[in-house]
């Protein structure tokens, strides 16, 4: 079959990104031709400012070199302007007469600078600031002339002005509005910005409009600029940075519907179904985006449709602004000006040069504007994008993430304060400097790209926030934030939430059904989605959906914990941390007989036998003759207890008995992640119940229940849920909470993550206030756990494939040819 022909007009970031995404999905579908008006391969346009400022070179900002086009079989026409699209014949024509036919056409023509309609605007020395040519011209002019005027005190204008000043020019910025960056900053922040730029030597003329640009004495180039009111200043260079407009001339001439951009639907398709548009030239739901993050989201969606998968939609983007001027920290996003129905929290220290404003509406952060200290900007942006209810953290919201107890690896929470040599990713040993280098040199934009290239944040994930901060600091505005809806993995478009919902509402009971129903891209998933699907199925439809051991991580398949040398560790269960001399004797015998190299007491009050060969596991279990400790699973681990009132002189409750009862009740309980409980017999809390998923503390009049604690990557103190009187109530309330977590959390979320997502109020409502809901949850838990098999004893019912414990015997005879 003849390949279809895809033509891309516009060899810039949005267009080429779309091609890259398309090649990832299907590299054989199209014969691809790209037309670019510039003589360069695709480069990172947003890094022109650092190039102008002399902080980076042009070579460093190339994103796709010529080899890339060649090795992907793309026909590239540089320096060619497409002047005509014939939609009937389906051809495009360049200014020098090349005609190319297409089956699908992608328009990524970008935007045009807005050139002020004043006399003299076409004099030599009057330029815009859009591409490499402009940048080179500015660099060149700076070596020969003195006075520069930048028209426009927005993001682009200020970056141009800063660059020219660093190259030794005397720069004046002309701005029509009464403060700088009025579309991104309020006046207080803008004034601070202005003074800090004035310290760098820039001059400003605000509320000023240009009347004419005048030639020099020789009449061969610009010489001065005159404003309304008569003021005239010398100008050897005038940079127009007064805004951009979508470049739609070609599309309009082809009769495509345009209205402040080429109008596209949610699949980035124009009014002609064969023609797509992405990037600054496109108008999506009334917005033409000029930042790179939204463009990349559009590219992904567009590629999905070009690849004829056709299941992806673009819903618009939340954007933020950061100025790329070294030494100036500024951030703004959302409704930073406030407005009706909004409340503002501000912190202003004009002398210290710090200003922060947070705009809140209906208990949600809807905008922020910060100057001087932007270290928490990533966090605010995330709160806003996720529309998180902030009522509970409102008091300390202004003081940043570090003040609400969310401290990252090694106590670092602010990347700005870290040195290049400081480690960001502790699992893989990746320093801040290495991440910055990779982002700069390899042109990375997203967290996923950083993960892929550097391995940072690809293991335990606790440094994700730090890596996002690095991205934001390096890329500024162009940081492509992780989309709010995260798909479960590369196999599917769907989020955990959508998958759980589909399994429940459509009564899906097998992975094949889920994959068919939700249009999975892979035949049998991957190591990320399979364990999640398996858990969702068996937890939603217990005793109905079949457990699939092959979709479980090896630990839950071999029922022991794999070690780095491929041996396993075995931890028998000791309910409530209690054991007997007979058990200890058996453990000692097994340790000697199987030459166990290490015997260790665990943090969960039991004994770990480390270094057991896989083939020995069944025999070890048999000789131990103790229940599986499930120390290897996303499951109930232990219930830690203190001695309690049986022996302790301070004890007020029987914590050991309570612990044993709970651990027996929860035996065999699989969950989104591991689950740990603790029971203390008095408020001295020797069992450390404050850092457990469910912590129970005995008081004289009953028991206090705490939930969502965690002693792991980030230490989290459990929150008080309620106080109950009887032992049966402890089981019912704890069980109901754990069942709620089992039914609603995303796979691999601990209770602390689940709690953070749904909020304590919701949990209290479901568990404490609504008796019926609590009893129903508790019943469902008990139903699920009824007759839970012991995987160390009941291989058949627990689905343990015992073939895995036997190496293949060599069959001696029979050398077949």
């Amino acid at each position, binding site marked *: 079959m003849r390949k279809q022909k895809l033509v891309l007009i516009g060899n810039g970031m949005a267009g080429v990104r779309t091609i890259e995404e398309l090649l990832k999905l299907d590299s054989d579908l199209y014969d691809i031709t790209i037309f670019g008006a510039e003589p360069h391969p695709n480069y990172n346009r947003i890094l022109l400012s650092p190039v102008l400022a002399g902080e980076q070179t042009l070579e460093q900002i190339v994103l796709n070199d010529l080899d890339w086009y060649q090795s992907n079989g793309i026909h590239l026409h540089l320096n060619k302007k497409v002047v005509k699209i014939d939609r009937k014949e389906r051809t495009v024509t360049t200014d020098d007469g090349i005609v190319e036919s297409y089956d699908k056409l992608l328009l990524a023509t970008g935007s045009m600078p807005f050139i002020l309609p004043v006399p003299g605007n076409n004099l030599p020395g009057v330029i815009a600031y859009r591409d490499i040519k402009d940048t080179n011209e500015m660099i060149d002019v700076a070596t020969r002339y003195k006075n520069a005027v930048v028209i426009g005190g927005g993001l682009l204008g200020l970056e141009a002005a800063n660059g020219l000043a660093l190259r030794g020019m005397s720069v004046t910025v002309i701005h029509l509005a009464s403060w700088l960056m009025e579309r991104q900053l309020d006046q207080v922040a803008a004034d601070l910005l202005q003074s800090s730029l004035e310290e760098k030597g820039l001059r400003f003329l605000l509320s000023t409009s240009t009347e004419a640009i005048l030639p020099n004495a020789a009449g061969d180039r610009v010489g001065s600029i005159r404003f309304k009111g008569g003021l005239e200043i010398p100008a050897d260079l005038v940079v127009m940075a007064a805004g951009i407009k979508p470049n739609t001339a070609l599309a309009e001439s082809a009769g495509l519907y345009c209205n402040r951009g080429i109008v596209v639907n949610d699949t980035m398709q124009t009014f002609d179904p064969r023609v797509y548009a992405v990037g600054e030239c496109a108008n999506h739901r009334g917005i033409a985006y000029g930042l790179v993050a939204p463009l990349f989201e559009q590219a992904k969606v567009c590629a999905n449709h070009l690849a004829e998968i056709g299941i992806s939609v673009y819903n618009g983007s939340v954007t933020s602004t950061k100025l790329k001027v070294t030494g100036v920290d500024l951030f703004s996003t959302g409704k930073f000006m406030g407005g009706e129905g909004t409340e503002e929290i501000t912190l202003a220290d004009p002398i210290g040069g710090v200003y922060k404003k947070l705009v809140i509406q209906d208990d949600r952060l809807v905008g922020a504007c910060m100057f001087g200290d932007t270290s928490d900007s990533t966090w605010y942006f995330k709160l806003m994008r996720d529309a998180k209810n902030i009522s509970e953290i409102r008091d300390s919201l202004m003081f940043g993430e570090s003040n609400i107890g969310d401290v990252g690896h090694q106590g670092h929470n602010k990347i700005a304060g870290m040195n290049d040599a400081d480690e960001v990713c502790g699992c893989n040993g990746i320093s801040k400097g290495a991440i910055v280098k990779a982002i700069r040199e390899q042109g990375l934009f997203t967290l996923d790209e950083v993960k*892929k*290239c550097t391995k940072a944040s690809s*293991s335990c994930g606790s440094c994700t926030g730090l890596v996002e901060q690095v991205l934001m600091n390096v890329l500024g505005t162009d940081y492509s934030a992780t989309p709010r809806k995260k798909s479960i993995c590369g196999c599917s478009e769907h989020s955990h939430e959508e998958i759980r919902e589909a399994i429940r509402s459509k009564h899906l009971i097998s992975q094949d059904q889920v994959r068919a129903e939700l249009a999975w891209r*892979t*035949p*049998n*998933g*991957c*190591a990320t989605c*399979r*364990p999640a699907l398996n858990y969702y199925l068996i937890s939603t439809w217990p005793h109905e959906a079949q457990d699939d051991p*092959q*979709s*479980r*991580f*090896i*630990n839950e*398949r*071999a029922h022991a914990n*794999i070690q*780095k040398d*491929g041996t396993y560790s075995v931890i028998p269960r000791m309910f409530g941390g209690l054991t007997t001399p007979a058990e200890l004797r058996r453990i000692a015998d097994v340790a000697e007989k199987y030459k166990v190299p290490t015997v260790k007491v665990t943090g969960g009050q039991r004994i770990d036998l480390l270094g057991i060969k896989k083939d020995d596991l069944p025999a070890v279990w048999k000789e131990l003759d103790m229940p599986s400790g499930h120390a290897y699973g996303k499951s109930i681990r232990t219930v830690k207890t203190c001695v309690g009132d049986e022996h302790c002189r301070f004890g007020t409750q029987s914590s050991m008995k309570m612990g044993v009862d709970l651990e027996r009740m929860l035996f065999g309980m699989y969950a989104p992640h591991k689950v740990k409980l603790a029971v203390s017999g008095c408020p001295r809390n020797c069992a450390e119940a404050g850092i457990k998923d469910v912590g129970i503390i005995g008081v004289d009049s009953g028991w206090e229940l705490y939930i969502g604690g965690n002693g792991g990557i980030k230490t989290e103190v459990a929150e008080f849920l309620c106080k109950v009187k009887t032992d049966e109530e402890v089981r019912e309330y704890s069980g109901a909470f754990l069942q709620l977590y089992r039914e609603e959390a995303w796979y691999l979320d601990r209770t602390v993550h689940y709690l953070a997502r749904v909020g304590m109020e919701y949990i209290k409502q479901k568990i404490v206030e609504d008796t019926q809901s609590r009893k129903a949850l508790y019943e469902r838990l008990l139903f699920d756990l009824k007759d839970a098999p012991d995987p160390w004893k009941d291989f058949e019912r627990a689905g343990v*494939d015992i*073939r*895995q414990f036997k*190496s*293949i015997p*060599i*069959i001696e005879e*029979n*050398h*077949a*040819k």
Partner: protein
Amino acid sequence: MPNNVDSVLWKKILPVEDIPVMGARVLQAEVGPIAIFRNAQDEVFAILDECPHKGGPLSQGIVHGKSVTCPLHAWNIDLSTGCALEPDVGCAKAFMLKVDAGNVYLNLEEIKAPHA
């Protein structure tokens, strides 16, 4: 590998059905442990049971498509070549294999200790 497949001395290892679907069995051969995989399409693959990253037992990983994910640090290995998928680099040795009448055969020469 010998150039002429006809001259290979094939050694019968085990019936395909003795390998769990989307799972693996391990042969302790002279050359080292060989993981013999069976995927959902009943295709069979044999590669050295040592991940090119840190030697993890690939036989214990989750099998999907024509790949396995190493249980230690989640590298994805292409079962047909033994090589790591992007972005990781490195290969575990892949072994010649044939399936005849429901039995898996490996090349006797290959599974013996490597020549010095």
